[in-house]
């Protein structure tokens, strides 16, 4: 059994991969570093406390006390030159000048200044006896699932499946071709299908490590959960991985040099990095582009992953995107087999 050519070929693939430290980093480390950096940079902070100041003058301390009690505001008393300086440099959201007519001084183009003005005004008006006619209550929602990192992790997963599928297959095939190893294999009774299948098999083994590393990191660091079933995530990633392995095979089917295949890889991957909604929603692209964007395999894969991870969809409802992913893989693989240069 362990001497079956498919097993030996797959083992060779895997050994060549894990004995290449750079490859390990780009496949496993890089997406985690990216998730960490982007997760930190775009974490949901909320508006936090807005800093307002009351200008020194009569009644300043009473106004400051009222404002300090308001939720979301912190208030200090400053002399006028200090206050103006801090307002100009953005350290103050709002300056309140007490008096017969209360003056709000703020930059109306800054969101937090306008927010501070609303909050301060409400606190002051209420303290002077304003009664709100309508009765309201609040329900606050801060659930995981709506944050940027929740959007990002499935996208990074999709992008990683694309990258490792294309590079993993394309690079080794072309390397074997340039080193005349492919030709050497052709001089043995090896079945061509065994050779091609060995890429698929070894990809699947690494796939689980890849997915587990990224999903595990997202959960551990940012509490990004999987709302749908893990089985569905596994199914989608296997399909995506096979599809991109097929695409990698197609890209590598004729190329004779590493340079040529690298160029082709980037040509294939670059549009998808930008268009397929890995880092931001593809809804931002014009309507005219949407059918094209949605037909890309990475778009469909990302959609399917987000549907399961964020919305908890079942596989049955993801026929359309999964169909697109499968079709890309199948067509690429069949074409690659027909035009493959074996020597």
């Amino acid at each position, binding site marked *: 059994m362990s*001497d*079956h*050519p498919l*097993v*030996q*070929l797959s*083992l*060779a693939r895997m*050994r*060549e991969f894990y*004995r*290449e430290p750079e490859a390990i980093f780009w496949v496993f480390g890089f997406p985690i570093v990216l998730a960490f950096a982007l997760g930190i940079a775009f974490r949901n902070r909320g508006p936090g406390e807005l800093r307002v100041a009351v200008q020194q003058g009569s009644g300043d301390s009473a106004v400051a006390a009222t404002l300090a009690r308001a939720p979301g505001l912190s208030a200090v008393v400053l002399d006028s030159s200090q206050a103006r300086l801090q307002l100009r440099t953005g350290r103050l959201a709002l300056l309140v000048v007490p008096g017969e007519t209360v003056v709000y001084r703020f930059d109306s183009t800054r969101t937090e200044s306008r927010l501070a003005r609303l909050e301060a005004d409400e606190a002051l008006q209420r303290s002077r006896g304003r009664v709100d006619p309508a009765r309201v209550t609040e329900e606050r929602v801060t659930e995981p699932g709506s944050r940027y990192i929740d959007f990002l992790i499935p996208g990074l997963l999709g992008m990683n499946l694309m990258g490792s599928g294309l590079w993993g297959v394309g690079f080794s095939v072309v390397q074997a071709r340039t*080193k*005349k*190893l492919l*030709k*050497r*294999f*052709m*001089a*043995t*009774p*090896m079945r061509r299908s065994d050779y091609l299948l060995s890429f698929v098999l070894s990809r699947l083994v690494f796939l689980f490590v890849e997915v587990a590393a990224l999903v595990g990191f997202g959960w551990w660091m940012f509490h990004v959960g999987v709302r749908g079933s893990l089985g569905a995530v596994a199914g989608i990633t296997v399909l995506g991985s096979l599809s991109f392995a097929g695409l990698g095979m197609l890209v590598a089917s004729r190329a004779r040099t590493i340079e040529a295949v690298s160029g082709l890889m980037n040509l294939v991957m670059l549009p998808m990095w930008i268009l397929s909604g890995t880092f931001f929603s593809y809804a931002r692209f014009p309507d005219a582009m949407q059918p094209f964007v949605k037909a890309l395999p990475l778009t469909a894969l990302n959609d399917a992953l987000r549907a399961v991870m964020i919305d908890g969809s079942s596989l049955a409802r993801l026929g359309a995107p999964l169909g697109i992913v499968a079709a890309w893989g199948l067509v690429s693989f069949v074409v690659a087999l027909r035009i493959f240069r074996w*020597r």
Partner: protein
Amino acid sequence: MAVAGLDLTVEARECFGLLGPNGAGKTTTIEILEGLTAPDSGEVEVLGMRWTRGTGESRALRERLGIQLQDTQLADKLTVEETVRLFRSFYRSAHSVEEVLALVELEEKRTSWVGKLSGGQKQRLAVACALVSRPELLFLDEPTTGLDPQSRRQLWEVIGRFRAAGGTVLLTTHYMEEAERLCDRVAIMDHGRIIALGSPRSLIASLGAEHVVEFALADGSGRPVAPATEELAALPGVRAVRPAVDRIALTVEEVHRAVPALLALLERRGAELSLLATHHATLEDVFVSLTGRQLRDE
């Protein structure tokens, strides 16, 4: 067209060499025989089978062949053992890893990465991958090119052991020493054609003389004072005269008669020698006499 009008037969259990300079069509010829290149026309029969009768017969034929290609680079990051194990998995019947590593004397490199092997060791590993299938017929394309003399001798021993066990070998080389030493018969190729075919001994004998005397004159080319070709040919014992760029080579039957006569002739002309050498005729001399060019032009 790389090769044309080739017609040759390799007998079972013999070692047959294709000898010729780079670009003579040796590799194209051997790859057509190996079924890696399809000929535009003509017929190839290997071990009674043909490459053109479908994948079933081709695969059955591949089971019986051992092939080493000229410029294969085996995967650097696999060990010797892993590489052999991979190749042996392709065959229905094969040597064990231990057996084949013993055949090429690489036992102590078993766990080394291929990338760390010396050139000679890599080449023996390539031959091990060819031998692992217990082939009846072994194809070797320039097996010793670029190797140091010791590595070359080690490979010759490997080939010798394979032949002693009853195997047939077809190899290409541009080292005539190798061809003379290993091959029962050689075909000398030039510009895609066979220009001579026979045992090394008979080819050398076809020169009509066993020795070669080479000389050059002190003033470089020295052509004005050098004797004319006819005069040299008329010297006793000289069979052929081959002027080359920097020297003149004479094929002679009896060195002891030809050399004194040559010296006397040069003496009369007042020409001074800068080189005088004699050696037993080799396949190189056969090639030069047939083409007027050196076998190795590097």
